[in-house]
């Protein structure tokens, strides 16, 4: 019985890992190949004559480290902004007796429903009027807004599950409502907060269209746009782009690997209590 259980656990781990890793592993293997090898038929999985040339080109052809730094700054700050503003909004929606709560929630959702392409030209004009083009703000603000609906609703869902008596106790001790929010509710809703944060971060990391438009100076480009600069008018050098992507993904992987500990750590405590 125990062996059976353990086998199931192992199999589950393998399935989840394989599902997530296989394109990344394929990219890793491709980054060591040449273009000609890539189109061999039948295809090869392991590179026949592994080469580091792609990595060398990846670092020298474009300032990839700069792109990464830009992405981290923009995604990080926009996530922070989104979480803070979203937490305030989520708290108002779940804890305070407010009229038209459903209307507000619907409006929040409505915001997410317009395709970004159509908002591009007015948004560009706005950023230009404010003199914010080619600054980090031009992306931080829209990214925070892009993820605001999902983050607010996720955090709201988690806030709802937390009994209000805990805050009441804190307020009896002299805490303000907002103080109670940040000191009592959010730590307890940690899995929700970290989930919302990861969602916001990756939304910002992924984003292409706005980044292409708001930042035209190469030194300010983010990763998702920067990597397409390796592309040619006609050409798409897969091995080179795979190498660049591997370089881009590794720090994110480390970040996520570290991050997920806190998600688990935060809630096993809650689970045990429950």
């Amino acid at each position, binding site marked *: 019985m125990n062996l059976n259980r353990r086998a199931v*656990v192992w199999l*589950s*781990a393998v*399935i*989840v890992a*394989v599902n*997530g*890793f296989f*394109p990344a592993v*394929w*990219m890793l293997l491709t980054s060591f190949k040449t273009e000609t090898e*890539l*189109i061999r*038929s039948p295809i090869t999985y392991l590179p026949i004559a592994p080469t580091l040339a792609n990595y060398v080109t990846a670092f020298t052809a474009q300032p990839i480290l700069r792109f990464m730094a830009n992405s981290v700054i923009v995604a990080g700050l926009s996530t922070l902004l989104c979480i803070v503003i*979203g937490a*305030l*909004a989520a*708290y*108002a*929606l779940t804890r*305070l*007796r*407010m009229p038209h709560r*459903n209307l507000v929630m619907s409006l*929040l*959702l*409505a915001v997410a429903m*317009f*395709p*970004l*392409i*159509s*908002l591009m*030209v*007015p*948004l560009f004009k706005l950023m230009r009027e404010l003199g914010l083009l080619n600054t980090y703000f031009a992306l931080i*603000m829209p990214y*925070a*807004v892009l993820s605001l609906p999902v983050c607010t*609703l996720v955090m709201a*869902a*988690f806030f709802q599950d937390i009994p209000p008596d805990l805050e009441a106790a804190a307020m009896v001790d002299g805490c303000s409502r907002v103080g109670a929010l940040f000191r009592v509710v959010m730590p307890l809703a940690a*899995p929700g907060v970290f*989930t919302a944060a*990861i*969602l916001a971060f*990756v939304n910002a990391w*992924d984003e*292409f269209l706005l980044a292409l438009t708001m930042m035209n100076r190469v030194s300010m480009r983010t*990763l*998702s746009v920067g*990597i397409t600069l390796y592309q040619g008018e006609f050409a798409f050098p897969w091995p080179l782009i795979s190498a660049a*992507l591997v370089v881009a*993904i590794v720090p*994110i992987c480390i970040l*996520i*690997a570290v991050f*997920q500990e806190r998600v688990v750590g935060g809630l096993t405590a809650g*689970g045990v209590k*429950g």
Partner: protein
Amino acid sequence: MTARKDLSERALGVLLLTPAALLLAAIVVYPVATLLWTSLTGVDNANPGAGEKFVGFDNYLRAFDDDRFWHSLWQTVVYVAVTVPAALLVGLGLALLANRPFRMKWPVRLGLLLPWALPLVFAGLIFRWFFEYQTGVVNDLLATVGIAPQNWLSDPTLATVAICTAIVWKASSFMALMLLAGLQTIPRSLYEAAEVDGATAWQQFVEITLPMLRPAIFVALIFRTITAIQTFDIPYAMTGGGPGDSTETLAMYIHKTTLDFLDFGYGSALAALMFLLSMAATSGYLRYTRRSAGREER
């Protein structure tokens, strides 16, 4: 005493919502207002120098007659109908698998989140390569079981299947993440009590897991649906809308109309129609929650 408390609560609520409201007003409301205004104008692109003129609802009426609009709308509906449930099922499966006690947790959690870390555009390109006729991994695997190589991206039906596979792969990661967070707030004591009562794994799943996951499922479904309606990056990267225009989604048609054809008026009208579609889809969800929430309160 209660009246003052009510008032101060309401005031505080408004105060807490203000930052969000300001940000939204600047970044969304203003562009949306411009969008709606533009949808009521038109420019003769053969002679743009003449400027734009007010055309009322002409752009909307034009969409009604436009075959390409209806086709892209249909294609979008197909993607939504297939990928939203599929992503939910796959995501739920992945979340359940990932919720087990592993000794080393990070490979599993990382495997769960990696599809999310890969930029959407590149996920699309990677899958395009996977489904490539001569050198794609999929045809290679099919060959090992004796099936002839398929022209995935040159056939409308197969291309749709390929695109849905890529979308579900990426989206299930998002679902799994939301559901995992939900799963991990379910206290173990409930399961332990159920086991003592002799409930099977399936019964535990249906009677404990699913109901407790409902809020997480709800949020995940709403956002997955809205995103699915806006499907752009993956079909764009995989087929460019081909063969012909058969895999073109509404978002792709809007993109082409606005940025390629420079028909801002028509593009804006299509975007407004997409918004109405999203409203219709999510109002269904919202009505369901209101009803079930009402039921629970009783």
